[in-house]
């Protein structure tokens, strides 16, 4: 298949002109996802859709300290986000490997003792690579817990730590229990420490800030919600754009310009390539605006913008090529719309575009991540949150680009052999 690239560019410019003269359609494609997001937020009580996930907890220490760690995830705000499920270590690792659960927290043997004696120790968190937000929250929570323990140890002081060490080492030689004087002194020390700390920890709970923003910034909860919804809204806009732009083939057919273009030397191949270029440019512009907004609003790292933009534009181009292929297989415009809508809406619903995966039941999000747009959306989130770099998405990106070109080629063949003549 040879393309007349000059005619393709002329077609792209022509379509861009036509699009700019129909700003309502453009606004609808971008505005509808925003409206849907706001509606979902309103329906869910104005608090947005709260992400909920399963946190697997392998407690090898089984001490009161390790139980305190577990309780940190099951109370307050975190308790609304996580279902804490105790598991055996190997079973937990296997489940995370299979994609079941947001993260696995492993408390090693001797964790409580090491913590009390201010010795080096560490908690292990195994994150589900296909999830972004909840594993990050779990990770942040453990980081905060570690900080809290550090400061508690500083406050408790050396004297108390030495007494704890004495208890851990056991009674003096020849005695079966600790001396009465030691027990009395330890009790007094504990009582004094608690009295001192109660000013800071009453009740004694671990609180977690979800966003590292200053307390005076009252926009933090909205930011959370918006960050959760932003990738989904952007993908929903892409789906609407891809579908709307693909419909233009029917308009060209009705205008007679499709048949006329077939008679030109560049022919249908160049015309479709031009439409593809136009769609890619428009999608790129919308994605760039979305990315710019996200970077400003959420304080994300600007270095992620180029890769994110490249990825989302590639995804949009793929969706457009797919929609065009569906349109040219339909018998009528109505049939084409019915076909594309019957694919667009289920894919949007389950593929994370209407509702973020984090707000879905596990079984649904597992299926959704297997859909093409679900996979692409997850990759986009990984890029956005700095968990994926160019080398990591290169193979997926190349495969997507090759598939896009194949769909486009197929659409050209179909248009030439049947669509334009029907």
């Amino acid at each position, binding site marked *: 298949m040879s393309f*007349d690239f*000059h*005619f393709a560019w*002329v*077609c792209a410019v*022509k379509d861009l*002109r*036509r699009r700019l*003269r*129909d700003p309502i359609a453009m606004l609808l494609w971008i505005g509808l996802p925003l409206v849907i997001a706001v509606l979902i937020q309103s329906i869910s009580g104005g608090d947005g859709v709260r992400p909920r996930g399963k946190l697997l907890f392998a407690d090898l220490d089984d001490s009161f300290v390790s139980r305190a760690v577990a309780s940190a995830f099951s109370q307050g705000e975190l308790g609304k986000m996580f279902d804490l499920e105790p598991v055996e270590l190997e079973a937990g690792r296997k489940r995370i490997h299979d994609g079941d659960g947001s993260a696995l927290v492993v408390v090693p043997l001797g964790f409580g003792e090491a913590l009390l004696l201010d010795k080096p120790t560490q908690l292990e968190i195994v994150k589900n690579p296909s999830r972004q937000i909840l594993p990050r929250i779990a990770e942040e929570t453990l980081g905060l817990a570690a900080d809290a323990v550090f400061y508690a140890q500083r406050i408790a002081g050396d004297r108390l730590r030495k007494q704890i060490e004495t208890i851990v080492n056991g009674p003096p030689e020849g005695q079966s229990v600790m001396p009465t004087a030691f027990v009395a002194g330890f009790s007094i020390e504990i009582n004094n420490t608690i009295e001192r700390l109660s000013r800071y920890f009453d009740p004694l709970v671990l609180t977690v800030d979800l966003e590292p923003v200053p307390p005076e910034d009252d926009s933090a909860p909205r930011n959370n919600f918006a960050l959760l919804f932003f990738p989904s809204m952007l993908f929903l806009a892409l789906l609407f754009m891809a579908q709307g732009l693909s419909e233009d083939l029917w308009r060209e057919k009705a*205008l*007679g*310009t499709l*048949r*006329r*273009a*077939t*008679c*030109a*030397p*560049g*022919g249908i191949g160049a015309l479709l390539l031009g439409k593809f270029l136009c769609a890619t440019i428009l999608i790129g512009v919308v994605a760039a605006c979305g990315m710019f907004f996200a970077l400003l609003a959420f304080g994300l790292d600007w270095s992620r913008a180029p890769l994110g933009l490249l990825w989302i534009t590639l995804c949009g181009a793929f969706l457009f090529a797919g929609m065009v292929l569906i349109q040219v297989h339909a018998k009528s415009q109505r049939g084409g719309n019915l076909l594309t809508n019957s694919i667009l809406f289920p894919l949007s619903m389950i593929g994370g575009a209407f509702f973020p995966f984090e707000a879905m039941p596990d079984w649904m999000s597992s299926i959704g991540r297997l859909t093409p747009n679900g996979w692409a959306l997850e990759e986009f989130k990984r890029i956005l949150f700095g968990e994926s770099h160019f080398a990591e998405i290169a193979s997926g990106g190349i495969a997507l680009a090759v598939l896009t070109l194949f769909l486009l080629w197929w659409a050209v063949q179909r248009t030439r052999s049947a669509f*334009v*003549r029907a």
Partner: protein
Amino acid sequence: MLTVSNLTKRYGDLLAVDDISFSAPEGAIFGLLGPNGAGKSTTIGCISGLLSAGAGNITVADFDTGSRPREAKASLGVVPQELALYEDLTARENLMYWGGAYGLRGGELAARADELLRRIGLADRPKDQVKKFSGGMKRRLNFACALLHRPKVLLLDEPTVGVDPQSRVALLDLVREEVSLGACVLYTTHYMEEAETVCDRVGIIDHGRLIAQGTLPELRKLLGERDLLRLNGLFDPARLAEGLRSLVDVEIVISGTEQVTLALANASQRLPSLFAVLQAAGADVRETTLTQPSLESLFIKLTGKALRE
């Protein structure tokens, strides 16, 4: 310049074009005349590359459309039967786009677009969107879009259908201008008068077959300079055929119980003797139409039916 040899095109069981051949030289207009569904648009579609020819060869400006389609298409200008314009673009933008489709660019394209806007009388409205134009203005612009690249062969598929008389005259003037500049034109129409006025050679097509072709004088000769006399009323075909044997050089073209069409020389002078025979054969004549030798009368003679039936 344009040569079609043994072109055949089938749609399943339907034979749309059946082994037709014709050629049109530089600076000439070849008219393809036939009723709707005769195969004119299919022939144009095969020449323009919109449809694949089932069999046969087509050469456009010495380029075979099968083996050198790109060069053949670049030498063609196609004016489709229906308008093919972007209504949301301006007149000039439409011209610039279709010029770009044929490889024109830059200053050459802009100058050619402005020239054509002048020729079609839209020089004062280049920035108006096409949707604001009248039907006639759209038709002229539709025509101009095919001329930007100065095609050697112009395919005009019923370009004056639904056009007001004033715009029709303007369009036909544009066709003649292109021919005077050396273009070869294939002009399909079902308007007899238009074919007679515009075309140098005419091919008559019906049911996919080219049943006659030649210059207008050559075609008139086929009719033998005879008039057509159409009679409406009540007839007994057998008695009528018997009675007409007594008259010299009268041919029954159509014979029915309610309509009879006869071909005869100098019909107006022979009406008294003819009516005497009709009366003797028991005919009840209610309406008489006399047609001078024309493409229409030739078409009726060749196909046994009127062109607009």
